[in-house]
């Protein structure tokens, strides 16, 4: 009797083993476990077994049946997986074909430099201000301690529109507006980036160019504050190793006044063509706000003090991106513009 069960079991396992695909497996399942299947038939012989042997018989048959079910399931799973794999393989694509990305535009290098400067100063509590480009003589000169007849007015030959109106020659023109507007006399921290205009056009000068101006006014603002601020600014723009050199100079709207050189970032101060072998590059004008400027714009110079500085952005952008010809900045050749198309 045991032999019979064992024989059927072995035969069944062999059939499962030999089933080549899902259909064959299904046929084997029906043949073994179906209503007319061999295991079902075996169960039906239970009644012919002596009563006391029935539990043992049942147990054996069940064991065989479970093994068969489990084997079929395993095999079935295997064949199904194979089918899926085959399907997936048939769907394989060429991942190296071009994507459907949208063409990127770009932002002008000069505006990128402005953004970088804005972000730095905004993080230090400065407000970014904008002023008119078509200015009055009063704000562009008069209120900045540049009265009629002052030689510095000749120095910066200007685009006048009427005797009172001109295109601003410097972003400093916004200083007086800010001072006059600040009725509560709270601390002023502002930067003014923007376009400026001078009546000159040659290989190194563009009649339209860009500057950024900073003004800080409060009680007890000193030269040391100016120096510290410029150190942060220049190291941020040109690298941590940048050194600054302050040369006493002259501007009508500041006293003391300084021209500020930075150590040449191309040769690290050793001397090269960019710095004309001096190791220094002249980059900024700076100083302590002239008491006349404070006075003319509603501030008591005995109580308040401030500093201001300004720099040309065209040169800064050229240095930053290694642009060798200033004209590229204003020609707007799209092959040039397209290069500034990512995070930096």
């Amino acid at each position, binding site marked *: 009797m045991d032999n019979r069960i064992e024989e059927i079991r072995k035969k069944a396992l062999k059939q499962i083993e030999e089933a080549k695909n899902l259909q064959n497996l299904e046929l084997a399942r029906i043949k073994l476990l179906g209503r007319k299947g061999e295991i079902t038939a075996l169960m039906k012989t239970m009644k012919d077994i002596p009563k006391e042997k029935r539990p043992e018989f049942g147990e054996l048959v069940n064991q065989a049946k479970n093994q068969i079910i489990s084997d079929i399931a395993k095999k079935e799973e295997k064949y199904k997986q194979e089918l899926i794999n085959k399907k997936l393989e048939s769907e394989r694509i060429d991942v190296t074909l071009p994507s459907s990305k949208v063409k990127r535009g770009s932002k002008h290098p000069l505006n990128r430099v402005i953004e970088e400067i804005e972000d730095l100063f905004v993080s230090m509590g400065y407000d970014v201000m904008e002023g008119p480009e078509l200015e009055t003589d009063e704000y562009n000169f008069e209120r900045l301690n540049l009265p009629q007849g002052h030689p510095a007015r000749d120095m910066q030959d200007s685009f006048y529109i009427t005797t009172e109106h001109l295109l601003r020659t410097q972003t400093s023109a916004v200083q007086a507006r800010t001072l006059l507007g600040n009725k509560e006399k709270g601390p002023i921290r502002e930067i003014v980036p923007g376009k400026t205009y001078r009546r000159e056009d040659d290989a190194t000068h563009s009649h339209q160019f860009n500057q950024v101006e900073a003004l800080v006014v409060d009680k007890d603002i000193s030269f040391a504050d100016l*120096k510290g*601020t410029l150190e942060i600014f220049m190291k941020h723009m040109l690298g941590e190793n940048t050194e600054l050199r302050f040369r006493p100079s002259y501007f009508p709207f500041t006293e003391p006044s300084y021209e500020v050189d930075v150590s040449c970032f191309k040769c690290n101060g050793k001397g090269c063509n960019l710095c004309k072998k001096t190791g220094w590059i002249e980059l900024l004008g700076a100083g302590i706000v002239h008491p006349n400027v404070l006075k003319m714009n509603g501030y008591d110079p005995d109580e308040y003090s401030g500093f201001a500085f300004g720099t040309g952005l065209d040169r800064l952008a050229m240095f930053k991106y290694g642009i060798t010809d200033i004209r590229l900045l204003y020609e707007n050749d799209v092959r040039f513009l397209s290069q500034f198309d990512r995070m930096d």
Partner: protein
Amino acid sequence: MLLSINFLRDYVDVDKDIDIIDFAEKMTKLGSEYDSAQKFINVDKLIIGKIVECNEHPDSDHLHVCQVDVGAKTLQIVCGAPNARKGIKVIVALAGTQLPDGEIKKSVIRGQESNGMMCSIAELGLDNKFLTDKDRDGIHELPADAPIGEDAIKYMGWEDYVVDFDLTANRGDLLSILGMAYEVSAIYDKKVKKIDISHKEYNENGEQTGEYKIDNDIEYIEKNIADETDKQEKGKELDFDLKINTENCKLFLARKVMNVRIEESPEEIKEKLMASGIRPINNVVDISNYVMLETGQPLHFYDADKLSGLLEVRMAEDNEKLTTLDSQERTLTTEDIVISDGNKAIGLAGVMGGLETEITDDTKNVIIESAIFDGVKVRRTSNKILRSEASNRFEKGLCPGRTYMAIERACNLLEKYADAKVLEGISKYDKTDKEYSRIDITVSKINKVLGTIVEKKDILDVFRKLGFEYETEGNEDDITVIVPKRRIDISIKEDLIEEIGRIYGVDNIEGRKLELPVKKGSYDKIKREIRNKLASLGLNETLSYVLVSEEEAKMFAKNDYENVKILSPLSVDKSVLRQSVSTSLYKIYQYNKARKNQDISIFEVGKSFYKDMDNYVEENKVACLMTGDYNLGLETKKVDFYVIKGIAEELLDDLGYEGRYSFVVNDKIPKDLHPGKSAMISVNNNMLGIIGRVHPSICEEEVYLMEINLEKLLKLKTGKMKYKELSKYPAVKKDLAVLVENNVPAQELQKVIKNAGGKLLQNSKVFDVYTGIGIPLGKKSIAFSIELSDQNKTLTDEEINVVMAKIADNLSKKCGAMLRK
């Protein structure tokens, strides 16, 4: 400003082996930036030699083969100079010497060995303007007693350094050797040396009557010379009339010297002049330049015998003529100061003398003028006529003490180098302010402004080094500085603080982190958002010029405003401020087109300008220009109206104006756009932008533009972004196609659908427009996808049908649209 170190040494001790670069950098840190610093004759070594034998070259008709004794040995040198001959002393460059034109090498010239070169002056690298024919044509001949084998440049007195300084506009005092000497004396803490202004005085008959002499240091002379001169001259004047008929001359001094002997200046004077950039002429003229270089005070010498008995300073008459030293006839105006002889102008004050009274080789007697003219007037005249060494100094301002000093110094030198006899007496007109400016300052103010802790004694030491007198009576903190008149740049406390900063050393001041209340800074976020958005849509940002031509200024702009014009433009194509940003973008398009760049998609946020009555208006705009292919991923689309409209809508949606803008065709559209392919952009019924194709008569290629006035747009508030309850009930999508006249804009139909749909209408989109087979001529089929839903319930078929019927009905009534089944 070219500074000769030899010249400087006359007034302050400078180390014999000065490191010139170190010196120049020290001066730079004090505010006088140097451009170059090098030897006057930039050659390592040149030796004195003697031609001991000179034979004609066997194979040449002009070369000589010379044997030259250079001390240690005798060299054979082949030389082409016509003046090469036996016995003369010459300047020899040995083989290996680097001359300005190249290295001297041993060579064989037509078979004859040559071991060096005998030099002409031209070959030493001297500026062309200093060279005479003699200097170019032949080798330089040294005096017979020149020591063979010694350094030739040193022997000639030409061993000098020249530093070229770029001075700041306020430091006129540094346009003089004396000014530089003060500056250098402050760096090295040395005293400024004395100046010799003594000279004998004679009467008309040439008999000595006395001696002018002030034996004291320069600071004393500068301060007291007016009084000293009065004392010494006892009020004696020259026998001609001096009339000052203008406010623009504050000080005028004149002296007369007699019997000058005109010849070449001594080498020492010539060298200092050349090193300072001035061409030597003759001893008399050279002295006027020399004294100007020393003292900063320009002098003018007149040939006394060509003057009448009168010198007058006045403003010129309109159209008055004067022929200046350079033989040019100048036409003057009432803004020019002139010197006149009573009849006519004989000199342009502060700028240039007249030809008629100039010093010539025959001049015997000289009138010396030393004066101060108004700087602003001189500047204007010199800008108009000629900028000169003199005008440059008048413009920057002069020190009266130096005006007196200069005239006596000139007498001293004329006596010494031109055998002149100085006539006793001086004509003078002096309305200068005799008061000294006193500035009160405190130690605490200085430290407050600089952000330092400099002690009082160190501050006083700076003033001492600068040669400033001071008083320290009163409060411990107080200092009163009496500003010397040479320092016209110093008038307020802050000027003194700058001096402390300079001499104390900016490097010694530690930078400090600004300490102000913490606050968040602000910037224009919207403009940056606009620029980011357009860049992310694939457009390249430009930065264009605001100045354009008259015609360009009005392109793509409303034409009812006046152009803003530049009074004196650089050129006609940059003479007017643009009224639209698009006009600049169109220029950029043309530029790129000329460079064969295709597919241009550019944008800019910038300003445009116009004049409205008497007001000048400037407005921020955003403009885009697109042409060629626009790349949307794998797909490439040729730019048409709808592509740029898409950009405009993306931008407006992004800024929060979704559903509030429309594209309107009316008569405000600029004439430079294609009338059938353009529109005004309206937001909340404000016409604030244009969009469309550039008119084909302007540009054949299809170029599209869009420009929005940000000034107007950003005044329109956008709602706050707020969450809206999601409908729990499903939305229903229905399609609806109608047949309408071709000229009915989709926007009109959509408006009707929106009104008819009411609350239930969530969305309506055009998904198809069709003309052609099956559609009557002049009509179009337009299909909408309409989305309906109710917040509170699921819509029944019946409710949906009612709404759809109402929409169809309204479309029919209001737009003549026929429902297509």
